[in-house]
């Protein structure tokens, strides 16, 4: 299973100059750092031209006080080979700034990104522009904090209690 990532990067960069900022190899995995504003075009290109039809995962990491663009949105895209063992997986990362975090949605490229992006929004508060239905998914809708942010204490149950009490009062769920 060998795949020519160099020509892939060259192709992306010629279509969208400067879109691939960096390439990292670690433990046999390839990571490309993508310019945040181009993420949706690059993803579309990867799917349309290179056949990365499958979005394996979409998540984010909070690097509070470690790196300056505070968040990284991480995409794992996958290409099925013609043979069952010729599969390629690629990690894309886009850096997103801490205040008013925002990035383009990729739901129009892979519809499976829908819930994954909602989860990132729910947990980190990163807004995906162009998402058709960006609501909280795991936490109750009236919950305020974003739990997976590094400045949120894992034992902080106050907000949960508030929303529980409201639900009790109103009989809703």
């Amino acid at each position: 299973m060998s795949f020519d990532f160099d020509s892939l990067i060259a192709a992306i960069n010629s279509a969208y100059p400067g879109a691939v900022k960096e390439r990292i190899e670690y433990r046999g995995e390839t990571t490309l750092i993508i310019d945040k504003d181009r993420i949706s075009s690059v993803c579309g290109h990867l799917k349309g031209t290179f056949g990365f039809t499958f979005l394996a995962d979409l998540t984010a990491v909070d690097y509070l006080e470690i790196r300056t663009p505070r968040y990284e949105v991480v995409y794992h895209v996958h290409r099925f080979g013609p043979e069952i063992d010729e599969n390629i997986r690629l990690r894309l990362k886009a850096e997103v700034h801490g205040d008013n975090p925002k990035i383009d949605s990729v739901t129009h490229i892979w519809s499976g990104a829908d819930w994954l992006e909602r989860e990132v929004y729910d947990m980190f508060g990163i807004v995906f522009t162009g998402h058709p239905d960006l609501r909280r998914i795991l936490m109750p809708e009236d919950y305020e904090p974003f739990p997976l942010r590094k400045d949120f204490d894992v034992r902080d149950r106050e907000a949960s209690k508030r929303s529980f009490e409201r639900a009790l009062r109103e009989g809703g769920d």
Partner: protein
Amino acid sequence: MERVEFISQEANFNADTGIRTETMMLNMGPQHPATHGVLRVVLYLDGETVVKAVPYIGYLHRGIEKLCEHITYQQCLPYTDRMDYLASICNNIGYILTVEKLLGIQDAIPERAKTAEVILFELGRIESHLVGIGTNALDLGAMSAFLYCFKERERIYDILETVCGARLTTSYPRVGGLPLDLPDDFEEKVRNFLKVFPATLAEVDSLLTRNRIWIDRTKGVATISAEDAIDLGLTGPALRGSGVPYDVRKAMPYLGYENYDFEVPVANEGDAYSRFLCRMEEMRQSLKIIEQGINNLPDGPYAADLPDVVLPEKELTYTRMESLIRHFVLVYEGFKPPAGEVQHAVENPKGELSYYLVSDGTGKPYRMRVRGPSFVNMQALPNMVKGRLLADVIAAIGSLDIVLGEIDR
């Protein structure tokens, strides 16, 4: 908890008949026997036809990803059981493999441990498919298949119990291999299982596969095309049932799966019945893998010789000072993988389970992300049931074989 409400803004008045009809909202769950836990689906119905289905999740969100940021890598293991609790052992092994990849020690894992993990992984697959099929049948009214399936699960529980002491929440292998050698009667128990299980499988097969009612309830129900399945990111039987032969065991082999002779069953219809057929055949293939594993189970060490990662033997901990100190450091601080990040996928019974670990060089994961197959598979539900009958929703949820622990984490 089912509640029915009428929403009048979509009311239609039929002038010919003089009948006014309304779209009805039916709330199903989060406490409902057929939602396999705490899923909540809000259905908009026109008569008995589903106009729209909106799943609501998060009723079991326990914050596992956040909790894991505060404990050592080894301590995260028990949390992984509690995600897909129908096949805890598969989650455990998937996590262990990810940490081993992060540490870069995959090649140091002894063959005995790897083979044992393959056997347990496939037992986990059977365990999960039994519940998947059993509860799907139970929801559609076939109680006896459920009882047969649970009977067989007890046998797998017995094997797991001899291996690790727990029936359900196994927390079994450790980073670097097995915590203890396999018990003496492991081989005998597994061989015994191999002997008796095909009979149960045949029973379930004869109860369902050609059962008229079962076929009527599942064939052509909850269909999804291959393109949609890929687009939505479905994996596991939900994807293979639509004719896409994607299986992580073949696509990105781990634990030496490339050396085992097995096939990836695929069905083409994309309906609930196809997914059922895939699961049945996968259990047969798992038996084949287990048999190959148990025949080739090598002797030798069961854990890697890596003092920085693997705990010293109990005996030595109690008798030697250096071992005691090592034990203490490993338990309190944990091993420290170099800074970096990896993703590792395994083929869980329900689809691709992958862990994404970010290390900052300390003993605790900086970020642990779990991509649960059920979470992504669940997205297919609105597509599957749109325009179908209300009763098909039950068949669809059952055939997706979701587990809420993994959806909500």
